[in-house]
């Protein structure tokens, strides 16, 4: 019995490093509770020239996303999330520039129209605020997807949202963006800021204060403040030199700490820590992302 135990320990000691190495090298699996689907854009009548132009852009986006495996990648990114229900993520045509979370179907509906809008409003290279095309396209995608995921986790985990649900989804998106290294953080926060700034510039000074969303500019400031609160050095150039007044800058660290506390108490218990470390160590963005 003693001999057997000794052999078992020896075997474990010998095998353990090899197993660890194999585990480290094995790809991060998709989250089995995250089901993804790309719905093909519908081809319009050839006589409808305007609709055909839109269709072609949507088709190109659809093909790029399927080829890149964006949603499968997203499922892998979400692998640490221990969901109690199956969450569906779909890309589809919606006939509106938007993205939604549908709580009846536990489904994220990401519209090709939204991604087309990100591309159409992105600078060719870099804009006057220093936002690059990659940040506008890839970061804009990350920001809206993480925002809708914020709604989803809020729903399925019954998060205590005592403030405003829409701001909560933005907070979750911004906070999560900061947990995967400087590249993801800078891309996603800048992408969010660019998206809302761009929308503000198109809509003008129209403020539907009755709405449950913050205004476009508030969302720019909120994303940048959380970014600066979590990683001051990474966002110093945007925040201190350009976007936020001192009175708000002074609160950003506190705002971030309050978010960290809320995340630790309400979302962390639903996250697999070992998988999380692997996801955090992975490089998620590729050099060619957004360069089209």
């Amino acid at each position, binding site marked *: 019995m003693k001999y057997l135990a000794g052999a078992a320990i020896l075997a474990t000691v010998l095998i353990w490093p090899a197993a660890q190495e194999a585990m480290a090298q094995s790809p991060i699996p998709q989250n089995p509770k995250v089901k993804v689907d790309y719905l093909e854009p519908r081809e319009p009548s050839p006589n409808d020239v305007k609709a055909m132009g839109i269709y072609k852009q949507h088709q190109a986006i659809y093909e790029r996303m399927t080829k890149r495996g964006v949603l499968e990648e997203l499922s892998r990114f979400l692998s640490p999330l221990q969901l109690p229900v199956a969450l569906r993520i779909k890309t589809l045509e919606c006939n509106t520039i938007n993205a939604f979370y549908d709580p009846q179907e536990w489904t994220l509906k990401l519209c090709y129209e939204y991604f087309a809008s990100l591309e159409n409003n992105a600078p060719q290279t870099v804009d006057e605020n220093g936002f690059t095309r990659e940040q506008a396209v890839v970061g804009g995608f990350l920001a809206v997807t993480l925002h809708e995921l914020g709604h989803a986790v809020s729903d399925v985990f019954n998060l205590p949202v*005592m403030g405003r649900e829409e701001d909560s989804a933005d907070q979750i998106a911004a906070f999560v963006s900061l947990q995967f290294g400087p590249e993801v953080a800078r891309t996603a926060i800048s992408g969010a800021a660019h998206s809302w700034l761009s929308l503000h510039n198109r809509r003008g000074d129209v*403020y539907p204060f*009755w709405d*449950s969303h913050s*205004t476009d*500019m508030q969302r720019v400031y909120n994303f940048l403040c959380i970014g600066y609160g979590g990683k001051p050095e990474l966002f110093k150039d945007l925040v201190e030199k350009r976007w*936020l*007044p001192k*009175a708000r800058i002074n609160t950003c660290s506190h705002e971030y700490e309050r978010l960290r506390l809320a995340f630790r108490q309400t979302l962390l218990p639903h996250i697999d820590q070992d998988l999380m470390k692997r996801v955090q160590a992975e490089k998620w963005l590729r050099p060619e992302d957004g360069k089209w």
Partner: protein
Amino acid sequence: MTRIASVAALAIAAAWSIVMVTPARAQVPSDLRNPQIDVAYIEPKTAALRPIYERLKKREVLEELRAFLAPLKLTKKLEIRTEECGDTRVAYKAGAPATICYEYVAAIENAAPEDWLPIGGQKFVRQYAVAGAFVHVALYEVALATFDILEIPVWGRDEYAADNAAGLIMLNFGRDVAYKTLIGTSWFLAQTSLSGAGPFGYARGADVGAQRFYNYLCLAYGADPQQFGFVKPLLQRRADNCRFEYASVRDAFLTTVMPHIDQDLLAKVKGREWLRPDDGK
């Protein structure tokens, strides 16, 4: 002019005495005390704010608030103070007192209507605007400090959550109190909205009175569509979602704040009238 000013001063004094604060020695029961809460009235330097300071102190507003907060099980000391701030508000800082600025109280009084108005089929009088907005700012500042002291997880921005927590409390003392305080608060927020501040003004955070005004209407309508049905048209597309917004806020409050409330003391607090029955007369 002097006569008008005197009449206004008298009306304000009457409003305070009737609506907001009852004489503490006679009214605050000895079993409603919160040993973790200290209160302080800091003397203002500006002469124009002195009458407010004296009124608040004489009426023992903060002692009354401390009694109201008796059920709150704080793990650290909290000081609630009234003070001249140089602005209508000072941002809450971790570990610092919860501060109600004399300038804010002055703004409440300035924004209150001189005469009554018909709102929601009832007479909305100056006293409600003054009392409602004061109750709001007091509960709002205490809520922010409570989130910090008790490390309460908050999603959806602390400022909005503090507004909602204050609103929920207002809704829990009967329909009469709910009307006076919620519509009183909404009146003040509407009158002092920063909608003309421009986009850079919004960088300050959740300081947009107009948004807070609509949030309050939505909370009230979501909680009691019958009583507050008259605000529905103002909420436009948002109206249908208000009952879900209210439910989300209520559930979050029950989950995160309620465990820190002493239920026996809460029953005592709820059993007492905090606004006097002669309100509005």
